């Protein structure tokens, strides 16, 4: 039987995937939107945990706050805060797309880049405000 297109004798280039493409910031933002969305779904475990801890009593609440205040806890909460701001801002951009705005290349590039910058600043601002509220800053 003749060689099939899949046989080594007929190696053909495969269609390029994300490992081949140059990463435009618009593509990175799109992927980040999805990744932060999945991350936020997992983050809802923390929200439910906090609410259950308050409903349970001081012991459970103190455990949650002690874990949240540890180094790893703070790193996770900072990631959570950043994901909230990124998904929030990029979600608004999705809504703008849905009504037909924001597709011009300079707008799309600028908004993608701007949302990365704003989301990091936003997460820092949330932490600074929280630390300030707690009297630590």
């Amino acid at each position, binding site marked *: 039987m003749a060689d099939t297109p899949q046989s080594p004798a007929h190696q053909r280039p495969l269609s390029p995937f994300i490992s081949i493409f140059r990463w435009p910031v618009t593509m990175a933002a799109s992927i980040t939107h*999805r990744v932060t969305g999945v991350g936020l*779904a997992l983050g*809802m*475990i923390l929200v439910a945990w906090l*609410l*259950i801890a*308050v*409903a349970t009593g001081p012991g459970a609440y103190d455990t949650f706050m002690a874990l949240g205040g540890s180094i790893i806890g703070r790193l996770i909460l900072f990631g959570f805060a950043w994901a909230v701001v990124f998904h929030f801002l990029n979600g608004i951009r999705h809504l703008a797309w849905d009504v037909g705005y924001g597709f011009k290349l300079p707008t799309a590039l600028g908004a993608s880049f701007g949302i990365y910058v704003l989301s990091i600043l936003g997460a820092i601002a949330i932490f600074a405000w929280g630390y300030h509220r707690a009297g630590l800053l």
Partner: protein
Amino acid sequence: MSIRTPFSRVQGLGSAHSGTEHFWRERASSVALIPLTAWFVYAATHLIGLSYDDAFTFLHDPVNAIAMLLFVIASVVHMTLGIQVVIEDYVHTEGSKLLLFLANKAFGWIIGVASVFAILRIAL
């Protein structure tokens, strides 16, 4: 010329037989989450460093309890819809897809019921 029947066209449900309902519910919940997330960020930063009694008092307040209920419910609706799309995009084996759909729904229900129960227990 289309082979679709006029009835099929007027229904507007397309090949998935569910029309744009999933898409629309995802957008509607995202619009609801704009003010609710802003409130949640305020609430979360407000809780930092609070004693148990102060945290309880904050969530015991009817306005805060209602806002937290709305935030949790809108979030669970939005995340269940969103994760379903991720599963649909990457999982193409019918068996695994069905199991993940069920797991996704179970996750949403567990997070939702647990959170709502906790909020009501604090607030009532």
